[in-house]
C-alpha cells in the first residue's frame, strides 16, 4: 500500500470515527459503520505490518524507534482528538436537537453510548498505527515486517475473519441475548398534580437488548393518582379514564396539545443506533381496582426486512395510591 493510499485510509478512519462521535442518528446502521471501521483498521494494521503491536525483540533498531515515536505522537494526538470529537458531538447535538429539550433518550440512562465506546476504543487502539501509516515514507512491511510477525498470506486473511465474528457476536446479542433494564435518565421526578388531591410522579427507564450495541425501548410516563385511579397524564395517545372527565374540562386544550407531550410520550425515548426500533405501541389499562398497567412495546430489528427481529416491552404498574408494583 502506497503512502497516499495509507493516508486516504487514515482520513477515512477519522471521518467514520467523527460520524460515530457525533449526535447524528444512525437509524440502526451503527453496525455497518462499525464493521467499515474495523475493515479499515485491518487494512492499516496490515499496511504497517502490525508494527504498533509487535514485540520489541522482533524489531530492528529502526522499527523500534519508529514504533516508539508513533506512540509518543499518538499519545499527544489523543488529547487533541478527544477535544475535537467533543466539540463535534456538541455542535451536532445542538444541530440535531435544535434547542428543544428534552431530547430523545433523555428518560433513559444507558451510560456511555455504544457508539462512543467504539470511538474511545478506536482512539486507544489505533492511534499509534494511524501515526505510523500517516508519517512513514515507505511501507514498513516492505522491510520484512510482515514476515517477521508471522503474517503470511494465511495470516493476512485470518485477520479479516474478525469482521464476520463481530457481526455474528452482535447479531447473537441483539437477537437472542437477554434483555437488560436501563436505569432512569435525566428526567425530573416531581410531585403534585394539575388538580388538588392528585399526586404525580414521572417515570423513566427502558429495556435494552444487545447491551450498548443493540437498541433500547424507552418509557417516559407522567403518572398521577388520586385514590380512585392511577393514570398517565400528558400523552394524547393515552386518554385519561372516563371517570375523570369532569376534571379535564379546563385542562384538555392546554395539557393535551400535541406539542406539549414531553412529560409522557410513546416512543420518544427509543435508542436505535445499532438496531432499528419500530412498531412502537403504548397501551394503558386501568383495572377494576384503579391500578394502571402501562406497557410500551416495540419490535427491534437488527437486520432489514424484520429478519431476526424480536418484540421488546417495558411495563409500568402503579396502584391508585401511588404504589409502584412494576417499573423499568
Amino acid at each position, binding site marked *: 500500500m502506497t503512502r497516499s493510499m495509507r493516508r486516504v485510509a487514515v482520513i477515512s478512519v477519522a471521518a467514520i470515527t467523527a460520524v460515530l462521535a457525533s449526535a447524528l442518528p444512525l437509524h440502526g446502521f451503527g453496525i455497518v459503520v462499525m464493521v467499515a471501521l474495523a475493515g479499515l483498521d485491518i487494512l492499516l494494521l496490515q499496511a504497517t505490518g502490525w508494527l504498533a503491536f509487535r514485540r520489541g525483540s522482533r524489531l530492528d533498531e529502526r522499527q523500534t524507534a519508529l514504533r516508539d515515536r508513533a506512540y509518543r505522537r499518538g499519545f499527544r494526538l489523543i*488529547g487533541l482528538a478527544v477535544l475535537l470529537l467533543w466539540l463535534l458531538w456538541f455542535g451536532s447535538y445542538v444541530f440535531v436537537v435544535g434547542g428543544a429539550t428534552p431530547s430523545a433518550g433523555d428518560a433513559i440512562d444507558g451510560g456511555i453510548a455504544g457508539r462512543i*465506546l467504539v470511538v474511545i476504543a478506536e482512539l486507544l487502539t489505533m492511534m499509534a498505527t494511524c501515526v505510523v501509516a500517516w508519517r512513514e515514507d515507505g511501507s514498513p512491511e516492505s522491510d520484512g515486517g510482515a514476515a517477521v510477525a508471522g503474517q503470511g498470506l494465511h495470516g493476512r486473511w485470518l485477520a479479516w475473519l474478525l469482521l464476520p465474528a463481530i457481526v455474528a457476536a452482535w447479531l447473537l446479542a441483539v437477537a437472542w441475548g437477554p434483555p437488560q*433494564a436501563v436505569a432512569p435518565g435525566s428526567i425530573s421526578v416531581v410531585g403534585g398534580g394539575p388538580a388538588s388531591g392528585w399526586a404525580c410522579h414521572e417515570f423513566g427507564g427502558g429495556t435494552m437488548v444487545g447491551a450498548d450495541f443493540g437498541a433500547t425501548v424507552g418509557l417516559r410516563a407522567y403518572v398521577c393518582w388520586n385514590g380512585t385511579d392511577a393514570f398517565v397524564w400528558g400523552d394524547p395517545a393515552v386518554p385519561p379514564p372516563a371517570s375523570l372527565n369532569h376534571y379535564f374540562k379546563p385542562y384538555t386544550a392546554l395539557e393535551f396539545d400535541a406539542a406539549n407531550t414531553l412529560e409522557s410520550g410513546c416512543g420518544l425515548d427509543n435508542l436505535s443506533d445499532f438496531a432499528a426500533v419500530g412498531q412502537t405501541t403504548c397501551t394503558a389499562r386501568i383495572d377494576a381496582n384503579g391500578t394502571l398497567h402501562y406497557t410500551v412495546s416495540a419490535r427491534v430489528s437488527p437486520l432489514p426486512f424484520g429478519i431476526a427481529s424480536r418484540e421488546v416491552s417495558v411495563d409500568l404498574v402503579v396502584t391508585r395510591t401511588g404504589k409502584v408494583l412494576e417499573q423499568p
Partner: protein
Amino acid sequence: MNSGASPGPRRSPRTLAAHAGFSPIGILAIVFLLLVLAALYVANSTDIAPALPWITYLLLVFVTWGVVAGVRREPGSWLGRRDVRRALVAGIAADCVGVVAASSPGFQVSSATVLLLLFLVLLNIALGRATERMATAPDGSVDERQEALRNRAHRLAYPIFAAIIGALLVADAVSTQSQTWTEHVLGSGGLLVFLELLFVLPGMVLAFIEPAPPPPEPGAPARPRAANVQARVAVALVVTLFALPFLASVGTAVLPLYSSAVVNTSPPAPTVIGTPSSSSTGGQQVASPACGNFLSIVFAGWGVSAEMPVSAYACWDGRRAYEPSGTGYGSKCWVSNALVSIPAEQCTPSAVTASDGTLTLTWRATVSPELLPFLNRHVDVQVIIDRNGHVEIHR
C-alpha cells in the same frame, strides 16, 4: 536538558533562564494576591480573618512554585535521584486517587479536593524539574538518548492509559451498579485525573524508568553554593507546604477558640408603656424590659477552621436576664470554612438562669478536621448575659 554524563545539545541560555526562577504568571499571581490582601486591609473587611490564612497559603504556593521551578537538576542533585523521582510518581498517583475519592458527584469541588489539586500542581512542577520536562521538550532540544528514552516512556504509558480508560468503559457496560460508580468517578474528580494522566503520565513513566545518574566524577567541579542553597530552600518550602494543612488541622483541635466583638443589634433603651394622662390619673407607668440581639462569630482553628455565627436574643429587667418565649433557632449553626467537618451540633442553646439573675446560653458542637478525622473536639460556646444586660462570650 542533558542529564547525567551524557553529552548532547544544550538549551540556549534564554530557554534555561525562562525555566529558572519565577515565571511572569507566577509574579503576576503573587502581586495579585498581595493587592487582594491590601484591599481587604484597607477596607477593614470582616472577611479578612478566615480568608487571610488561605491567601497566605496561596502566596506560599506561588513562592514555592517559583523556587522549585528555579532549581536546576544537575548531576547529584536531589531532584535527579531515582528514588526521589519514583517517590514523586507515587505521590502523584496517590494524589490522583485522593482527588477521585475526595470529590463529590456533580463537579462540586470540596476544600479537600482544592488542597489535593494544589499538591498535584506542585508535584507536577517538581516532576517537570526532575525530568527536565524531557517528555514534552521540543525535538531539537533533546539528544538521541533522551529522544529514545522519552519515546519509550510514551510507548509504556500508552497501554497504561488505555488500560485505565478501558477499565472505566468496561465498568460502564457491565452492570447498573458499576455504571453508577463510573458516573460518580467521571462526574467528580475523574475528569481532572483524566486530564492529569493525558498530559503527565508519559512524564511519570519517564521519571520511573530513567536510570539513576552516574555519581559525579572525582575531579568534577562542585555545584555552586547558591544552587545548593536554593535546592535546600525548595525542599524546605515543599515540606512546609505539605505539612501546614496537617499542622492547621491539629490546630483546630488544640488552639483556643476566638470570636469577633459582640454587637447588639437591638436599641438599648427601654420603652415606656402608658400615657402621661394615665400617669396623672394615677395609672402606673410600666417600663418594658430591655432586650438585645447579640451577634458575634466564634472561630475554631486557623486556616483549617469552622465558624459559628452566634445570635443570642435576651431581655433583662434589672433583676434577671431571660430568653423571651418563642425565640427560634435554625438547625444548622456551624459552618466549615475549610477542611473541617461538623459531626454533631446542638443549635438550640440550653438556657440556664443563675440565682443572681444571670442567663447563660450554651451551644454545643463537635468539630473534626477532615485531614485528621480521628481528632474530635467538643466545643461549648456560652453567651452570658447578666441582669443588667452586660454580655460576654465564654469559649
